[in-house]
C-alpha cells in the first residue's frame, strides 16, 4: 500500500489500539497521527478514556487517509469515522494478551483484513488475582483464537522489551507497528515522530528498535499466509519455574543420587529402588524439602510415609501414578508447614538477600535495607515452644494477653541490621526443639489421619483417594486464613466419612474441594454441604 494510491471509493486505513490506563496508549496514538500528518495524510484519533484512565481498558481508534490530490482542508475533507466497524479494522494493537482477546470478541480482528499486534504478557484481572487457588485464564486459548482470527499475527512479550530498555510498552508496540509494514510509512518516519515527541526519546527508540526487529522477523517467517504461522511459546499458564526441563527430569529419574547432597544419598538410592519413575521427581523434591525443613531423620520419616502409598499405588494404581504424586506433594508441603522457625530460616539465607537485591535493582553505588512485616500471635509463639510450655502459655491468660500487648500492632524488623538479623537467626536456630513443640505433634497427627483415610480408600476407590489427597491444598496461609482452611478441610472430611461408600463420592469430594477454594468464608462450601 503506497500513499496517494487511493481512490475516493476506498475506505481509510483503520487502526484500533487497546491499552490500559498509564501504558502510554495516548502517546502512541499521537506519534502515529503526527507521523501521518507530516506525510500529507488526513489522520484522526479518538479515545474514550472516561475514568478508564484509572487502570481500566481504553480503546483508541485511528484513521488515516492519504492526500489524493483532490482533498482540501475545510472544503473537501475525507470523512473519517470516530468508531471502529467490526470487520473493517486493518490493524489492531493490544498492549496485553487479554486485551487482544477483548479486541477479538468485539469483532475488531478478522481473518481477511486484520494485522494483530499484541504483547503476550499478562496483566492479571482482579478475578484472576483474588482467587484462593489458581484463577488464571488459559493464555493458549486466547493465543489460538488470535491466530485463527487474524490475517497476520505479531505476538511477543513487548512488555519485557520495554522493561529491558527501561521504556514504556507504547514505544515497543510502536516499533512492532513499524516492523509489521501494516502502515505505508518507512521506519525513519516512525523514529522521526518519536523524536518530535521529545519525551524519553533515547529509551523509547531503544525499545522501538528491539521490537521492530522482532516484528519484521515474525512477518518474514510468516509470509503472507491467511493463517498465521507465528508460534509463541508461553505455556497454558505462564511457564512455571518449578516445571523443570525434560533433560533434568530424566536425570533425576535415572540417577536420583546425582541431584542430592551427601546427606541424602541413601534416601535417594532408596527412592530409585522403591519409587516408580512417574513419581520420582516429586519424591526427590520431597526429601530435599523435609531435610531442609528439619533434618535427614525427618526426610526419612517423609519417605517412609510416601513408600506406604507407593505400595498401594503399585497394587491399586491405574498406572497414572496420580495418587502417589499428589500424596507425595501434599505430605511434603504439610510436613513443612510454615511456623515462625521456618519463616525466620528462609528469611535469613544469603540466596534470599540476593533475590531481594536483584528485585529492587540495587546497583553497586546503592545500599539496601529490608524491613520485615511480622505479626506473631500468641498461638504461633506457643506453637513453636515445647508442648508443656506452649500449653501453659495458652492456658495462662496473663501471659497470652501480655504477649498480645507486645505484638498487637505487629513488628517491623530490619533484617539488614545486625540486631534484626540476629533475632531471626536465633529463631531459626530453634529447629532442634521443633519436634517437641505443640504444633509439630498436632500436625503429625493430622497428617497421619489424612494418610490413613487415603490408604483405606485407595483399595476400594482409587479416584476418591486421589481427591482426598488433593484436599490438603485447601489448608494454606497463616492466621485466620489457615484456620478457615483447616475448618473447610474438616467439613470435607466429615462429609467424606458419610459418603465414602457412594459411587459418586470422588466427584462429590472434588466439588467440595473446589468450593472450599471459591471464597474465604467457606460460603460456597457451606452451601454445598447445606450447613
Amino acid at each position, binding site marked *: 500500500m503506497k500513499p496517494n494510491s487511493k481512490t475516493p471509493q476506498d475506505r481509510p486505513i483503520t487502526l484500533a489500539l487497546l491499552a490500559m490506563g*498509564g501504558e502510554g496508549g495516548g502517546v502512541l496514538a499521537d506519534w502515529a497521527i503526527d507521523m501521518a500528518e507530516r506525510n500529507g495524510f488526513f489522520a484522526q484519533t479518538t479515545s474514550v478514556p472516561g475514568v478508564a484512565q484509572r487502570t481500566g481498558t481504553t*480503546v483508541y481508534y485511528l484513521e488515516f487517509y492519504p492526500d489524493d490530490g483532490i482533498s482540501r482542508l475545510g472544503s473537501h475533507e475525507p470523512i473519517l469515522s470516530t468508531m471502529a466497524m467490526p470487520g473493517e479494522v486493518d490493524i489492531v494493537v493490544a498492549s496485553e494478551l*487479554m486485551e487482544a482477546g477483548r479486541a477479538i470478541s468485539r469483532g475488531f480482528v478478522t481473518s481477511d483484513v486484520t494485522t494483530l499486534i499484541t504483547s503476550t504478557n499478562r496483566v492479571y484481572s482482579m478475578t484472576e488475582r483474588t482467587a484462593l487457588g489458581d484463577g488464571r485464564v488459559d493464555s493458549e486459548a486466547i493465543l489460538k483464537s488470535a491466530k485463527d482470527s487474524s490475517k497476520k499475527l505479531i505476538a511477543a512479550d513487548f512488555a519485557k522489551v520495554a522493561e529491558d530498555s527501561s521504556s514504556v510498552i507504547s514505544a515497543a508496540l510502536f516499533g512492532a507497528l513499524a516492523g509489521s509494514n501494516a502502515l505505508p510509512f518507512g521506519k525513519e518516519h516512525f523514529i522521526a515522530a518519536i523524536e518530535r515527541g521529545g519525551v524519553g526519546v533515547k529509551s523509547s527508540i531503544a525499545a522501538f528498535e528491539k521490537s521492530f526487529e522482532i516484528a519484521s522477523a515474525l512477518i518474514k517467517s510468516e509470509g503472507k499466509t491467511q493463517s498465521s504461522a507465528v508460534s509463541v511459546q508461553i505455556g497454558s499458564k505462564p*511457564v512455571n519455574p518449578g516445571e523443570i526441563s525434560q533433560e533434568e527430569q530424566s536425570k533425576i529419574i535415572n540417577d536420583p543420587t546425582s541431584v542430592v547432597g551427601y546427606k541424602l544419598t541413601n534416601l535417594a538410592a532408596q527412592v530409585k529402588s522403591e519409587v516408580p519413575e512417574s513419581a520420582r521427581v516429586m519424591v526427590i523434591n520431597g526429601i530435599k524439602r523435609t531435610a531442609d525443613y528439619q533434618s535427614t531423620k525427618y526426610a526419612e520419616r517423609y519417605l517412609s510415609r510416601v513408600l506406604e502409598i507407593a505400595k498401594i499405588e503399585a497394587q491399586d494404581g491405574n498406572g497414572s501414578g496420580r495418587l502417589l504424586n499428589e500424596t507425595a506433594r501434599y505430605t511434603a508441603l504439610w510436613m513443612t508447614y510454615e511456623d515462625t522457625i521456618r519463616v525466620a530460616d528462609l528469611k535469613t539465607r544469603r540466596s534470599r538477600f540476593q533475590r531481594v537485591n536483584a528485585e529492587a535493582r540495587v546497583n553497586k553505588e546503592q545500599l539496601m535495607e529490608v524491613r520485615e512485616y*511480622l505479626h506473631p500471635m500468641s498461638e504461633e509463639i506457643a506453637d513453636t515452644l515445647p508442648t508443656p510450655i506452649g500449653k501453659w502459655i495458652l492456658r495462662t491468660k496473663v501471659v497470652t494477653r501480655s504477649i498480645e500487648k507486645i505484638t498487637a500492632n505487629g513488628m517491623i524488623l530490619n533484617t539488614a541490621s545486625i540486631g534484626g538479623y540476629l533475632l531471626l537467626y536465633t529463631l531459626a536456630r530453634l529447629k532442634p526443639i521443633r519436634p517437641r513443640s505443640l504444633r509439630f505433634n498436632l500436625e503429625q497427627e493430622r497428617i497421619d489421619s489424612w494418610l490413613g483415610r487415603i490408604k483405606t480408600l485407595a483399595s476400594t476407590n482409587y479416584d476418591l483417594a486421589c481427591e482426598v489427597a488433593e484436599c490438603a491444598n485447601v489448608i494454606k496461609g497463616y492466621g485466620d486464613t489457615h484456620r478457615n482452611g483447616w475448618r473447610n478441610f474438616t467439613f470435607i472430611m466429615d462429609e467424606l466419612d458419610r459418603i465414602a461408600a457412594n459411587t459418586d463420592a470422588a466427584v462429590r469430594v472434588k466439588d467440595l474441594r473446589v468450593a472450599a477454594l471459591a471464597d474465604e468464608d467457606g460460603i460456597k462450601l457451606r452451601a454445598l454441604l447445606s450447613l
Partner: protein
Amino acid sequence: MAERSFATEVGKLRASEGEEFFGEGILAVTKALLQSGVSYVGGYQGAPISHLMDVLGDAKEILDELGVHFENSASEATAAASLAASVHYPLRGAVTFKSTVGTNVASDALANLASGGVTGGALIIVGEDYGEGSSIMQERSHAFAMKSQIWLLDPRPNLTAIVDSVETGFKLSEASNSPVMLQLRLRSCHLHGRFIAKNNIKPKFTLRDAMENPVRDTNRIVLPPASFLHEQEKVTKRWPAAVKFIQDNKINEFFAEGAADFGIILQGGLFNTVIRALQLLGLSDVYGNSKIPLYVLNVTYPIIDEEVVRFAKDKKGVLLVEEGQPDYIEQNINAVLRRAGITTALHGKDLLPVAGEYTPAAVIKGLLEFVRKFGPELLNDEKLPAVVKPSGDKPNSINSVAPTEQIHGRPPSFCTGCPERPIFTALKLAERETGKHHVSADIGCHLFSILPPFNIGATTMGYGLGAAGAAALHDTSSEKRTISFMGDGGFWHNGLTSGIGNAVFNKNDGLVVVVDNAYSAATGGQDLLSSASSSEIRSTKHPIERAVRGVGVEWAKTVTNTFKVGEMKKMFKDALSTKELGPKVIVAQSECTLNKTRRERPLMAKKVKEGKRVVRERFGIDPDTCTGDHSCIRINGCPSLTIAANPDPMRKDPVAAILNTCVGCGLCGEAAHAAVLCPSFYKTSVISNPSPWDQFKSKLRNFIIGALQTGIEKRLSGIEA
C-alpha cells in the same frame, strides 16, 4: 494543578487568520470561543469536557490579554447562573459541563435564564457522556433543551464543523434572545484533527463597561407577570427568530437532494458514522458524496418544519437516525408530517436500536434494511461488508473463535499507591468485627469501592449526595449506623449542605467519610477550596473539618495519613459505636498519588543526580513463605500487587508478587499487620548516594551477616547436590 497540563498546547490558541490548527477537539473549542469574542467562561470539570477547563486554566495569559474572565465554578448551577451576565449586557459568555449529570444540576438556573432570555450570546457547551466509556446514567440533554426552549446544536464530528458551530451558536443566541446548547459527543471531545484558524477577537463591550453602567429591566426577571410574558415571547418572537436564522444561514445541510425517492435524516453528530456505513454499502465515497439524499440536522432542536417537509415531501420513505431514547425527534417529525398531510413513511427506531449507542455496526444494519426496502437495486450483495454478511460467509472472528470465557471485565480501579484504597481496606477489616452496615456511596474515584475486591457501597445518588443518600435510613432504635462516603469534590459541590448540614439539622447519627485527596481527582486533579497546594489564580487551603464544624458537627476527626490502616480501622469502630449523638464525620486525608508522583518523581531524580542521599522504597513478597492463598490481594486490590508463577517445584498455585510499578505506599505491610496475614511482606529501602555512616554500617553488617550466612550454607550443604 490539573492532572494533564496544556501549558505547551495553549500556544496554539494564538494561531491567527489562515493558520492550520492541529489539535484535540477540546482545544479547538477553546480557540473557537476566543475567535468569537467571548467575554467570560465558566464551568465545572468532568469527562469528557474536563480538558476544556484545564486548557482555559493553563491559558490565563492569553485570556488576560483578551480581557476574558475564566472561572472554575463551584458547581454546574453556579456556571449556568453566571450566564446571567448576558441577560442585560451585550456580553458573549460560555459555560461548560458534563451532561446530563451537570445539566441536571444546572437546570434551575438554565430554566430561569431561558425564561427571561438573553441579549448577549449565551452558549452552554455540554460534553454528552453517552455510550461506550460513559460513567453516568444514559440520558439525553435533548430533554433539557426542549423543556426550557434552549436551541440544541449537534455538529458533525470534525474540527471545522465544531469550531464553526461555536461561532454560529453565539449568533443564533443573539438573533433569537435564547441560550444555545452545543452538544459535544464523547469522541468529539477527544478527537484529534485540524482546521483553519481565525484571529482572536477582543470583546468591544467589556465586563468593566457592564459593571460601571448597570442596567435592569424587570421584564427580564422571572416573576409574575413577566414570567407569563416570557412564555408567550418564547413561541411568538424567539422561536420564529431562531427558525429564520437557522434557515437563512443554512445551518442544517442537504446532500444529494433528489438523487433518490427515499432519504435519510440524521443528527449531525452521527454524520461520519452514517457516511462510513453508506460507503461500505457502496452508496457513498469517502468524501460523503452520497447516492442517497441526506438531511443533516446540525440543529436538533428546534426542528425546522419547512425543511422537513421539503425533504420528505416527494419521497416514498425516510429513515431517521436518532441516537438515544426517548425518540423526541421522531415524534416531532411525525407530528410535522401529519400536520402537513404528508404520507411519506417515516422509519427510525423500528429499523434501528430503540436504545443504546449508535455504533457503526448498529447503523449499517439499520441502513441496509432501509435500503433493501426502498432501493434494493442500489445494493451489491456480492460486495457486502463483513459485519452484515450472512453468518456463513463471515470471516473469523465476527461471532466466531472469540475466546469469550478467557476475557474478564477490566473495570477502572484505584491506582497503585492510591490513598483511598486503604480507607476501604480499613473499613473491610472493621466490618469483620462490627458486622456489615448500609453504605451509601458517592461519585468519584472512591466509588470504585463497589467493585471487587472491596464490594462496599449500595447506592450512589449523584455527585456530593453520598450522605444525603443515607438520610432516610434513620431509626435511633437501631444498633447499626449508616456509613456514607463523599469526595472532597462532591463535598464542596454541594455535600456540605445537602449531606452534612442536612444530617446535623435532622439529628442523624450516621458516619460520613469525606475522602480528601486534595484535588477533584476523578475529573483530572483540578484544585478545590481544600487543596493543599497554593495557586496564584485561586484561593485554596480551606480545611474541610473547619467547614463541617462550622455547620454544627461536633464529632469530626481528620486523618492525615490514610495508609495507617490500623488507626483508620479503630476510628471506624469508634465512630460506629460512640454514644455521642449527631453525625460523625471522618475527613480521610492523603494526596492523590497521580498528582503526588508527578510532582515528586522529577525532584527525586534531580536530587540523585546532584549526589544527595535519596531513599527509594518499594515492597516485596518472599515467594517461599507465600502459600498462594492471595488473601492479601482480597483486602487490597492494588494493580502492582499481583500473582506470579510459583517458583516452588512442589506448589501448584501462583504466589502473590509485587511489580516494579510499586511506589512503596506501604498499604501491603499495613494490611498484612492489621489483618494478621502472613510474614511474606517486606519493604526494601534503596539508598542512593549513601552517607559515610551508611557505608560504615553496611560494611559491618555485610561482614557479620555474611559470616552467619556462610554458616547456614554449610549446614544446608549435603541436601542440595
